[in-house]
């Protein structure tokens, strides 16, 4: 039996505009991890724990933190771990489930400073963060992070981060809000140990603590509504466990579907000049206009009569691209199902057939029945597993029953049935 892993967050430095620490986690070499901002704020060490906890759960054991941590965070991280561990059994990555770690850290005396009256939200320029700004007028500050979705190590994103930052600075100025930019290498810590999809909220929470002295509340906009939220990533259940005595971490967005969020922002002039949803960024594109996420957003904008008004996307939809686009994740399927409903509700027969084929392909790829529907409020049917096979068998049966040779022998079968009945 192997010894329990002994892990450590050491040499934590909290200086104006910078937090750095040495992450000594099992399975990887020790690394210096940093968060930097031009904003003059002395970060809270709670940020280091938020960044390291899930990566440390890859091997379990103990995690020692040298600096004092918020008593509330120390108490609630146990619940965070238990939930993540429970969820990780259901993640479909072919990896071992996460293991709980025993966190040892001195507890900080709570310092209830007077409220600052400031509320921040993360701002990538995407649908979710724009919707959070529109729905929460009390937001006073925006936070843009370099090093989470746009990475310096990816050649095709070369120069993109500067362009994005420039546009977001302009947007923040127009919105009358202060933009704080944070640069980080936190993905060097996480990528070898945990998947980005379940982890991505953790760096945002770490950055919320980085700015704890500035804000009463930091909003993390999740990307999925309560009804179809998978047990993974940013959700109210786990994000809010990271609130401390100094700053409240708020998960936002669960009340609104993606279609509703697009509707909320489609007419906003700043969103029309800035909206950014692309993760593929082929050739350094701000929005490629051809990937699954771009098309999802573009079609939704089109349904809101706003596609041509949004400057950051091509004016025309190229639906043929969908034929070569994979749809292989349950949550992506749910979003496309919603979009298809919206297309049908709007009576857009010019778009519906391409989407129907795309959604049908997704269901087949995932082995789901064509009657499957993720959203219960749209009469979701969860007939898993046998879907694709059943479809194929039903189609074959239909062909046989409709064939000329089967119909031709119908009189023979009737005769046979009569003879058998007479014998009985």
């Amino acid at each position, binding site marked *: 039996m192997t010894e329990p892993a002994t892990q450590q967050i050491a040499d934590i430095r909290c200086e104006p505009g910078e937090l750095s620490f040495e992450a000594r986690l099992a399975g990887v070499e020790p690394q210096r991890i940093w968060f930097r901002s031009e904003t003059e704020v002395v970060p809270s060490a709670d940020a280091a724990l938020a960044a390291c906890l899930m990566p440390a759960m890859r091997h379990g054991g103990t995690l020692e933190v040298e600096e004092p941590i918020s008593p509330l965070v120390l108490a609630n991280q146990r619940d965070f771990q*238990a939930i993540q561990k*429970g969820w990780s059994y259901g993640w479909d990555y072919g990896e071992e489930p996460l293991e709980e770690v025993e966190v040892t850290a001195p507890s900080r005396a709570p310092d209830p400073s007077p*409220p600052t009256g400031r509320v921040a939200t993360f701002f990538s320029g995407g649908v979710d963060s724009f919707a959070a700004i529109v729905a929460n007028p009390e937001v006073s500050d925006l936070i843009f992070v370099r090093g989470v979705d746009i990475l310096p190590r990816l050649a095709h994103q070369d120069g993109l981060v500067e362009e994005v930052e420039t546009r977001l600075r302009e947007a923040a100025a127009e919105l009358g809000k202060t933009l704080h930019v944070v640069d980080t290498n936190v993905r060097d810590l996480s990528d070898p140990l945990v998947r980005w999809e379940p982890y991505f909220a953790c760096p945002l929470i770490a950055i919320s603590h980085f700015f704890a002295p500035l804000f009463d509340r930091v909003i993390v906009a999740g990307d999925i509504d309560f009804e179809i939220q998978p047990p993974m990533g940013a959700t109210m259940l786990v994000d809010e466990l990271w609130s401390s005595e100094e700053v409240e971490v708020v998960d936002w967005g669960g009340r609104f579907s993606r279609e509703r969020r697009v509707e909320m922002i489609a007419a906003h002039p700043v969103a029309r000049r800035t909206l950014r949803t692309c993760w593929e960024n082929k050739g350094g594109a701000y929005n490629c206009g051809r990937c699954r996420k771009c098309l999802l957003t573009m079609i939704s904008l089109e349904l809101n009569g706003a596609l041509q008004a949004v400057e950051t996307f091509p004016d025309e939809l190229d639906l043929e691209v969908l034929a070569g686009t994979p749809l292989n994740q349950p949550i992506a399927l749910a979003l496309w199902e919603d979009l298809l409903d919206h297309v049908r509700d709007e009576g857009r027969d010019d778009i519906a057939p391409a989407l129907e084929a795309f959604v049908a392909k997704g269901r087949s790829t995932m082995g789901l029945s064509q009657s499957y529907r993720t959203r219960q409020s749209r009469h979701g049917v969860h007939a898993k597993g046998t879907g694709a096979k059943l479809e194929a068998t039903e189609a074959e049966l239909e062909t*046989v029953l409709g064939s000329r040779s089967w119909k031709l022998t119908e009189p023979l079968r009737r005769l046979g049935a009569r003879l058998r009945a007479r014998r009985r």
Partner: protein
Amino acid sequence: MSTAHPRHEIRDLAVGPGELSFEARLHGREPQRIWLRTGSEVESYPEAALAATLMPAMRSGGTLTMGEAISPRVLRLQREFQGIQRAWSREWVFDDPPLEEVEVRAPVRPVEPRQPTGRVAVFFSGGVDSWSTVLGEEDVTDLIFVRGLDILPRFAHQEGLADRVEERLREAADALGLQLHSVETNVRDLSEPRGPGYPEIRWESYYNSCLAAVALFLGPLFDRVLISTGLAYSNMSKIGASWMVDQLWGNESLEIADAGGLLGRVARVERIADHPVVQRSLRVCWHNPDGAYNCGRCRKCLVTMATLEAIGRLSEFETFPPELGPERLELLAAQEVQEPLHLDLIEEAQAAMKRRVDKPELARAFEKLVANGRRRLGRDDGPSEAEREAAATKAKLEEILASRSWRITAPLRRLAARGSR
């Protein structure tokens, strides 16, 4: 069917030392005077009334107005509470229509930071979950017992029970050196205005709102109030007490938190089983025939007794029959499991017991109980409905392909295929 925009109102809210009451005017119902009372001197947070009324109002949607100023945090987060409850309600198995969101209209009060009281309370029914929290959370200073939630004055068979339970819980609190606050309320009338057989809002989905209301009622006394959940995080269900919804009722001065998710039911029983005060006061029964403290014959009693038996502690408990003989094992095996949540708890107990003891008669009773429950709830290990449908379609196709009338026409199909080439 009424198509009018439903209007609900919390009116005439009165807050005095140890009492909060208000008139709930819910759409389509007679106005109801709802009250919460306690012997402790406390001036309540008025948002207690909102916590109690919101889910019943969600039965029909519309607007809910209250004139009293409430916490800005509560007003902000009740929207999230509603969003989650609405989404969850689509998956509940009660055949009720899903809940609808309500627009809450209320003024907010200015936020005045309050000095911490240094006190932490736990809801305390004397059951496994609350005992586990009391013994597991070091900073607990106070206990809250509520009359009018699981023990109701309108039930003849529970007559006198609340007094006896409170007496035992007071003894337990004294023995632990904790202060017990007893709260009495008629809040259940809001969810069941026509009696328990006709719930507007199911108790399973609503009880934690009542606990949140009581937490806010006593809130100025505490920094934190803990609600003990029934399930471990690994087994969480989308109904009732959950971190997802309960913590949303905390205001700027009071934290409302869930406790217990770190442990499953069996681990909780193990945590509390050796404590002499627990052995004198543990109470799990909801049936209480003839006012019994624990009847020892209902599903909840029997599963708890079986768990105690499995860890060798049943005979030390004064509040249960000392033995789980053949008759009770038979009763256990024959219990009807009607809700997924209950099956989850029983399966958890079964799995934990398999790891801990070798008691074949107990294992057999659990096997029967679980098998019945799985069958009843459509979780049996046989094929799913979709698999059965697929198998039936395949069988029909194979029967046709093997039939004489299909085989004798094979030359015709070959001919047709050649022609089409």
